[in-house]
């Protein structure tokens, strides 16, 4: 006879306790930097009735007067501050022009760079306030950008939504019902599906972090190495980029926790994977919120989100089909053929509305973003959009070929391998379209 294990020490945590700890942990943050901006007058996000005579910045420790830099920008025009910043210990003051030379109403961006007296560390940051106007997020510094990285990181975030949201939704709507119909459990494919989604969520989580930092860099400017000492809070709180990143970070962590739960709990696996898929598709809203369509109004924002979700369902579904074909390859033909055939036929029915929604929403967004037809050829945004449309049409033609010619043959009993090569081509075209979409998301639309 065996007894249950007994513990000599205390059991400290219960699930409720864990949840409480999580809630408490979600609130605060750490700080151990130098020359951190504690307060400013006018304060960050304040709206003043008259143009202030000066801007006063107070740091948590003394700064070196010789290296103190403060620039003030209204809209896109730099304000001529009267002389260098006046530094007294930890207080820095810049005087703004007054009288007839006083800048008028508008959103003011204050960009600062300080060197701490004690250790020589450089810190920098930016914030906005308004004069008789709503303060806008801090404006990017002129001539400061990082090549390629924003596009690559945007593509990785799209890929995360596709790999986690698209493939898991495929599993919930296509693979699981097909497996149930054929009396299979689908356990063989589950671990692959979980790993694909984990890779997608983890990549998107980190691409989101670095995308935010790369997006914040042009706002504060300065040397790339100094960016590690950038005070980031105003950019996180004051811009849609930062707000969307905050929300999507916690949502991706939730997706990862659900995927871990699905991995270790086979009994609830399908339900947890379905929730993770829906949550991943929901994260796409954060990506839309931080991009151009948000400035065009609520309807354009909704269209962009719907466009992204439809793309994730189509691309994710095609990738999931390709993975299924690979995972099922070791099986005997008698086991493999019915499952892949059933999934192909079910996905074909789901893909049609997705592609229609994708095309309609994409067409609407193109009309909103392009002021004239000539802008298609006269702007980098228009040319990229044209290339994306060509790739989309090629993928669409291939999908139409699959639905019109290949599917009837497979439904009639032709081997599912008939579709393998063209399906791989469709995946390639759709991934290329995602690359172009990422470039488009980081290119300013023509005005």
């Amino acid at each position, binding site marked *: 006879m065996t007894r249950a294990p007994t513990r*000599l020490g205390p059991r400290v945590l219960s*699930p409720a306790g864990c949840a409480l700890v999580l809630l408490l*942990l979600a609130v*605060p943050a750490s*700080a151990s930097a130098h020359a951190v901006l504690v307060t400013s007058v006018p304060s960050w996000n304040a709206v003043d009735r008259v143009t202030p005579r000066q801007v006063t910045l107070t740091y948590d420790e003394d700064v070196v007067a010789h290296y103190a830099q403060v620039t003030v920008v209204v809209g896109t025009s730099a304000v001529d501050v009267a002389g260098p910043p006046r530094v007294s210990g930890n207080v820095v003051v810049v005087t703004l022009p007054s009288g007839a030379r006083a800048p008028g109403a508008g959103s003011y961006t204050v960009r600062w760079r300080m060197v701490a007296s004690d*250790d020589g560390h450089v810190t920098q940051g930016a914030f906005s306030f308004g004069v008789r106007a709503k303060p806008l997020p801090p404006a990017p510094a002129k001539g400061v950008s990082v090549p390629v990285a924003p596009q690559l990181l945007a593509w990785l975030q799209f890929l995360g939504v596709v790999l986690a949201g698209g493939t898991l939704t495929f599993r919930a709507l296509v693979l699981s019902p097909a497996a149930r119909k054929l009396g299979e459990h689908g356990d063989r494919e589950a671990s692959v599906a979980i790993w694909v989604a984990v890779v997608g969520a983890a990549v998107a989580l980190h691409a989101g972090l670095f995308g935010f930092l790369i997006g914040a860099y042009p706002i504060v400017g300065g040397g790339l190495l100094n*960016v590690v000492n950038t005070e980031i809070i105003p950019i996180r709180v004051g811009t849609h980029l930062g707000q969307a990143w*905050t929300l999507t970070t916690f949502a991706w*962590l939730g997706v990862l926790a659900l995927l871990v739960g699905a991995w270790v709990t086979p009994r609830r696996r399908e339900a947890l994977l379905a929730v993770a898929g829906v949550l991943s598709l929901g994260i796409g809203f954060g990506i839309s919120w931080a991009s151009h369509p948000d400035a065009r109004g609520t309807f354009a924002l909704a269209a962009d989100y719907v466009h992204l979700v439809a793309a994730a369902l189509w691309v994710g579904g095609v990738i999931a089909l390709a993975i299924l074909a690979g995972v099922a390859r070791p099986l005997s033909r008698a086991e493999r053929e019915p499952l892949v055939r059933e999934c192909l036929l079910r996905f074909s029915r789901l893909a049609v509305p997705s592609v229609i929604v994708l095309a309609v929403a994409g067409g609407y967004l193109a009309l909103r973003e392009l002021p004239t037809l000539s802008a298609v050829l006269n702007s980098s945004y228009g040319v990229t959009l044209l290339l994306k449309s060509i790739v989309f049409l090629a993928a669409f033609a291939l999908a139409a070929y699959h639905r019109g010619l290949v599917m009837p043959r497979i439904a009639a009993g032709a081997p599912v391998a008939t579709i393998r090569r063209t399906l791989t081509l469709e995946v390639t075209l759709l991934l290329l379209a995602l690359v172009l979409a990422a470039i488009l998301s980081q290119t300013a639309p023509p005005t």
Partner: protein
Amino acid sequence: MILPQIQIARAHWILGALFLAIILDEYLPVIGGDGRPTRSRSVVVPWALIIGAVGVWATVVFADVVHDMLIHFLWGDILFAAGALELARRRGVYERPWLDGVLPVAFLSCGILFLVHVEVDPSGQGAHWHLAMGLLLIAGGVLDLVRVVRRRSPVVPLALVPLMGFALALIAIPVAAAS
């Protein structure tokens, strides 16, 4: 724009309490039915690690300076991966001999990141305490890794001493600094 000291202290002592719970659950001996110490299969430790990872990622989001974000996201990743692997092992869905080394390697890596944290900001707030805590974590990780490699199962592992020192420091120092 800087967060109040009390909030920072609260975040750190709660994380310290969570860590204390993890190491007590992991290293205090469980006596099996045969009267011998046996390895805990409680899922409290892995879920606490995952919750800790989410908490550390929360610090990434709410950090005020970029280098704090970069160090904390690496801590968060290590804790999340360790929690997921431990959870899978304890639930019996993924069992490999090398999984015994997950926690010691996680402690060791987190300790090394403490030293990197100090290197990036050498005269930052509490840098010497960060250094001491990093060394405690490294000592705990190395001692536990040696135990795993030599396949020893003492009733109370030696690694518990530096790891408890780390947890108590994480609780006591921020509270003392804030009060």
